Every structure is written in structure tokens, then in C-alpha cells.
């Protein structure tokens, strides 16, 4: 046997050896053997600690029919109760048959009830799992996670997963939600402040009416908690009605791993403006030109928000400097929007409105909730040479009594297409 033949023989032996060795992993991860979870819901269980709900998609049904009704019929929901997320998924696995894979899970939903008792164990378990992406959104639902997921049927999109992908886009131009992922949440949870936020979700009017009529408990009307002003608006209280039964509005606030309250739509705008996570948003301010009238302006950040922290006599002073550009959307009669005085008046009104809103926001997060969701502690770290110095300063205690100052400059550029009415 020649030397060449020996090498070929060795190569073939090695090849078969590795085919045998790695085939198990290949077979277990074969597409046809996997059931992809689109969203995962976690509620408090009745018979066990948790109730896990997984939303699957039937690939054959999607490829056969691209309409939204077709997709909703292709969605499979399964739930089980267990003491941990992964034991629950294992139970669902035995029902589904195929191996559950979380690689395409776009949203993880926790019910508010469960979040109030702390979700650090669940978040750590999810991050510990290789399949789930840190970019999956985290939603805290006012209703049960099961209801949220079962009502999450696509509306304009052909796939539910496409709807979940719009969360990040919506946050950029409405400011009513923030694109919070489990990666962000985990990072904040294990970070210096330990406080975090999540998207606040709930059922819309249509879904709530359907639920009430089906449960025949018509005593509680769905219109009881209806809010129309963004100052008070949170998920589950809006007037939105539509085929897709869920809505996301506002933010869920966490003190360490426990849900401690929420931010309304306007407070969410304040939070996003501080953190430079917004492209533009529409706010409603008092019209300086007509009494008891409101006008809408579209606000967008002109420069990045500057945060300054001063430690004085052992106390904290936190300063926020915002520079915003604005366009007038709602036009009053007989007004020249090219007149500098008019624009100046609108600027002053906008600045006054925003200062007031920011003060309310700071009061809520620092005094009421005592949470540092804007990570102000980072801007003060430079004052401490070592970790020990920072710990000794007792940031959390000082933050509660911090003095906030806001310096807001709104530059009203113009109205849009019409310059004079």
C-alpha cells in the first residue's frame, strides 16, 4: 500500500469518526425536529409556582397563507404549570412532541402579579440559556401573560413575530414605550443601581370587552379606567380598539427585581429624552395664543442630553440639560408662524410644560419609587476613586433626597407646510 493510500484511509476513518461524533448534535438541532417559540409568557401558577405559556407558529400554515387570519390560525398556544420556566417548557415539550427552541423567541411576558414578587430567578435562568437572544423584548402585562399572548395576533403584519419586531420602531417615534430587552433588564439588574424598566403591556378595549362578555361579568365595565390624556395613560387604559387585542403603553418600573409601579406615556417620554432613546414625539402644550386651548408640537432632540451630578455637603444635585427642536403641528387661526414672537411664545410654553413634566417625573422616580432607572449613579462615579468609596457614599439613600434641576431649551423652528393662517 502506497503512502498516499494510507493518508486517504486515515482521512476517511477520521471523517466517519467525526460524522458519528457530531451527528447527535446535528439531529437534535435539525429544523424539522424543532418547535420554535415566538413568545413566552410567565404567570403566577395556581397549582405550582409558575404558569408558562408558549406561543408557537406552524411553518406550513404560514407558507400556505400569508394573510393575518391565516397566520392567527397557524398559531399554537400551549401552557403548563411548574416551579420553574424550564420545567414548564419541558412539560409543554412532552405535549408538543418536537423539541422546543427559544432561538426565535421575540418577547418574554411576565404578569404584573408575578413581577411584584420578583423575577430575578427567571431572568437569570433565561439569560443562562444559550438559545434565547438578549435582544428579546421584556413585557410586563397588566393582564395575565396568557391573555396577552393569546390576544397578540398580527394586524398589519403577516406574522406575529413581525409585530413583535415593531416594538423597537414604535418607541423611537412615539416615546410612549421603550425598547427594553431582557439583555437590558439583566444588565440593569446586575448593575450598580439594580433598578430597571420593562415595557408595560395590557389588553385593549376590544379584547377587554370580549373577555367581559365571555365571562358574563358585566358588572365591571371596560370603560371604568379609561384615560385619554397621555399624562395618565398606561397600557390597558387607552381607548384603542382593534382586531389585535393588546397594547403597549408606558413602562413598568422595577426596584431591584420587583415591580414597584409604572410610568405613564408622558413620563416615558421624559425617561427616553433623558436617556437619548427617542427620535421624535408629539406633545400637547397650552396654547400661548389662545386661552384654554391646546396645541401639539413635534419634539426631537437637537443635542444629546447632558447629565451633571454635583456632590455638595454630602447631598446630591443632579442637573439635566436638554436642547430640543420642535415643529408646530396644530395651527391656530389668524397666526403668522414665521413671526419670531409667536415662535418664542410657543417655545416658552413648551419649556414650561416640559419642566413641569420633568419635575413630576423626578418626584415620582426618586421620592415615590426611589429607583435610579436613568442611571444617574454613573455620572457620579467619577467622584469616587475606588469601589469602596462609592459604596460608603450610600448612593441609594442620597438619591432619595437628591435635588433636581432641569435646563430645557426648546427651539420651535416653524410650523410644517402652512406658515400663516
Amino acid at each position, binding site marked *: 500500500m502506497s503512502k498516499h493510500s494510507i493518508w486517504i484511509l486515515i482521512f476517511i476513518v477520521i471523517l466517519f469518526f467525526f460524522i458519528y461524533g457530531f451527528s447527535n448534535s446535528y439531529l*437534535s438541532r435539525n429544523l424539522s425536529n424543532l418547535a420554535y417559540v415566538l413568545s413566552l409568557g410567565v404567570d403566577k401558577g395556581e397549582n405550582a409556582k409558575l404558569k408558562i405559556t408558549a406561543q408557537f407558529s406552524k411553518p406550513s400554515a404560514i407558507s400556505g397563507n400569508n394573510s393575518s387570519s391565516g397566520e392567527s390560525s397557524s398559531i399554537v398556544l400551549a401552557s403548563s404549570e411548574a416551579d420553574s420556566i424550564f420545567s414548564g417548557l419541558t412539560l409543554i415539550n412532552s405535549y408538543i412532541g418536537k423539541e422546543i427552541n427559544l432561538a426565535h423567541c421575540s418577547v418574554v411576558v411576565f404578569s404584573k402579579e408575578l413581577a411584584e414578587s420578583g423575577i430575578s430567578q427567571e431572568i437569570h435562568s433565561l439569560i443562562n440559556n444559550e438559545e434565547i*437572544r438578549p435582544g428579546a423584548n421584556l413585557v410586563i402585562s397588566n393582564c395575565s401573560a396568557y391573555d396577552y399572548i393569546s390576544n397578540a395576533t398580527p394586524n398589519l403584519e403577516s406574522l406575529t413575530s413581525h409585530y413583535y419586531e415593531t416594538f423597537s420602531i414604535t418607541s423611537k417615534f412615539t416615546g410612549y414605550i421603550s425598547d427594553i430587552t431582557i439583555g437590558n433588564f439583566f444588565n440593569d439588574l446586575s448593575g450598580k443601581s439594580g433598578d430597571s424598566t420593562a415595557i408595560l403591556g395590557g389588553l385593549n378595549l376590544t379584547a377587554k370587552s370580549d373577555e367581559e362578555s365571555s365571562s358574563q361579568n358585566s358588572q365591571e365595565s371596560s370603560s371604568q379606567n379609561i384615560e385619554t390624556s397621555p399624562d395618565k395613560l398606561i397600557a390597558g387604559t387607552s381607548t384603542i380598539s382593534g382586531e389585535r387585542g393588546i397594547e403597549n403603553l408606558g413602562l413598568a418600573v422595577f426596584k431591584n427585581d420587583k415591580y414597584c409601579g409604572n410610568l405613564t406615556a408622558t413620563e416615558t417620554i421624559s425617561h427616553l429624552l433623558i436617556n437619548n432613546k427617542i427620535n421624535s414625539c408629539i406633545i400637547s402644550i397650552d396654547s400661548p395664543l389662545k386661552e384654554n386651548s391646546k396645541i401639539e408640537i413635534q419634539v426631537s432632540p437637537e443635542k444629546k442630553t447632558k447629565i451633571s451630578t454635583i456632590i455638595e455637603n454630602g447631598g446630591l444635585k443632579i442637573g439635566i440639560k436638554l436642547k430640543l427642536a420642535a415643529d408646530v403641528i396644530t395651527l391656530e387661526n389668524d397666526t403668522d408662524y414665521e413671526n419670531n414672537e409667536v415662535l418664542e411664545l410657543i417655545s416658552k410654553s413648551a419649556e414650561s410644560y416640559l419642566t413641569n413634566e420633568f419635575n413630576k417625573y423626578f418626584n415620582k422616580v426618586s421620592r415615590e419609587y426611589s429607583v435610579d432607572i436613568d*442611571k444617574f449613579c454613573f455620572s457620579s*462615579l467619577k467622584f469616587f476613586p475606588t*469601589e*469602596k468609596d462609592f459604596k460608603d457614599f450610600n448612593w441609594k439613600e442620597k438619591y432619595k433626597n437628591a435635588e433636581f434641576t432641569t435646563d430645557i431649551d426648546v427651539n420651535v423652528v416653524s410650523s410644517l407646510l402652512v406658515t400663516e393662517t
Partner: protein
Amino acid sequence: MENTKIGNKEAVALLVTITFNQLIINGSKAILNNTSSASLLNILFLSIITIIFTCVICYFLNKFPAFDLIDISDFLGGRFLKWVIGLLYITYFIIFSGNLLHLFSTCLQIIYFPVTLLFFIRLFFVIGATLTCLFKNNTVYRSTFVLFPILIITTVFLFISDIQFFYVENVYPMFGEGIFTTFVSGLSNLMIFQTLAYIFFLPPMLKNPSEIKKITINSIVLSSFLILLTVATVLFTFNGLVEIDELLPLYSAVRYIDYGSFFQKMNSIFLLIWIMSFVSYLGITLKISSTIFKKLTFAKSDFVFVIMLAILLFFASGWQKTYAISTAFIQDVLKYIFFILVFGISLLILASACIKQKIVRWKK
């Protein structure tokens, strides 16, 4: 005739690849655990120390052109010292790379091959490295050179892609857990510069041994740049890295990369590049170790030594029962061996050989 010498660029690629692999698997995590927010400051400090140390090594090596540590040991203490130094380095190289192999294989098993035995993953690496070593014309060094720009580009790409998640303030408090931890106990982070152990065997491999200083300084500067970039990526991306320990922090940072819905899950590409780079690293280790053996025994071919060392490498990656044992072994045992061997014994031999050379010349 086989081409056995390598050019300056290939040598730089070789040295940087060694540090880079240590960095991915264990290094960035160890640095951050030791010096937390002061890690970047610590790296800058260590880079300066390493450059000074490299200059010292090069000064001594230049006294013996085209000689490596084995030849110099032979000159200083004869066959006995030559064998002792040779065997010490071979043992260190094999055990250290064996540990890294165990760590990396375990990570791969967790991430991609949950139902594949660790045995097959380890074997895959060992066979890959052995084959690249057995090919002629310095295949192992040339493949490393081809892969080298990809390593640099991907590391820069990772840094840029994760910028959107950065909290630059994580660099504070400036001195982390204290000045002593940053500048004194933080010296243990020098282990990241594994390259230093390989520099002693570089001169005979070079086409221009007189340019060793230029090559090593360039490689240390490049390595420092990569370490800074990698540690900065991890430090800035994760708020609570000091509190939470991640298996492969760099991999976790890669998972955050997301360019819309088109470029998602880029971790697979990064892992593929790291796998290739790791095979190169193992190949380099096998090649240099077998060259040392060849020198010790005056053998004509290193074929048998490559096979023998590959078997040893396979066993050196298999004795650890858990990931934790492997990490602890590197931190508690191999770290001290590295310092004793590289900063102690090797430097002492070089210095003593220089003195002996001067005495011999003076006697003549």
C-alpha cells in the same frame, strides 16, 4: 527544499494569535475579575511593563543571534540545562494549551453541541492542529497569517457594533477596587501576554533574526490594542460584570450585535473565526514544542514528536472534570508557573549566559 523560516509579518501574526486566544477564552474574564472598572488602566500599565520586559529579552537575545533559549541554555549549562529548560517549556506549553482546549471545548459543547461528547470536540481540535503542523512549508504559520487580519477586523467590528450598548461610565471608579489591586496585585494579569513565553524560541525561526526587537514590540503593541478593545467591549457592555460572571464574556458581547432584522445571530460567524484561530494556536504550540524536542534529541524530523505531543495535548485537556477546575488550575497553578518560568528562570538564564559570554570573550 522545505521553507522553514518565517518573515516579520508572519512572526507578528503568530505572536498576536497566541495572546488573542488566551484573551477570548479566559483572559478578558480574568482581567475584569481581578481589576473590575480599573481594567483598562491596568492593561495600559501592563502593556508598558511588557514592552520594557520585551526590550530586555531582545537585548539579551541579540547577544546570541539566531539562538533560542534552548541553544543559550546549552551554551550556559550544557546538555543538562538544555534538557531541563526544554522539558519545562514543553510541559508548560502542553498543559496550558490543554487547559485552554478544555475550556474552549466546554464552551462549544454548551453553545452548539449539547449532546456531543467533549471527547469528540477535543479530538477535533487536536487532529486539526496536528494536521496543520504536519503539512510542509510552515503551513501552520502561514494559515495563522491568513487568519490574522480577520481576527483584527472582527475584534474592531465587535467593538463598533456594541458601541450602542456601551456605558462608558463603567470605567469609573478609576482605580476599581483600589490602587494596590490595580497596580500591584493586578500584575498577575500579565499572564494575558502568553506571547512572552514564545518569544524565547523565535530567533531561529526568523528570516531576519536581527529584527526580533521590531517584531516583538510590534506584536506586543498590537496585542495590547486587541486586549484593550476586547476588555473595553466587555466592560462597557455589561454593567454588572463584577457581580455576575459569564462563561465566555466576549461571546455574550457578540450576542448583542444586531443590525436590524438582516444581520442577526452573528455569534456563529465569530465562533467559527475563533475556532479557526484556536486551531492555529494549538498548531503553533505543537510546532514550537516539537521543534524544541527536535533540538533536544538532534532528530531529523519532528513528525513523531508532533504526534506524541498531540496525544499528550489531548490528555492534558481531558483530566479536568469541570470548567471550574480548569479555570482554577490556570489561576492558581499555571499563573505562578508562567511567572517563575518566563520572568524568573528564562531571564536568569539569558542574563547568566550574557555574563558567561563576556567572561569567555574576556578570557580570550
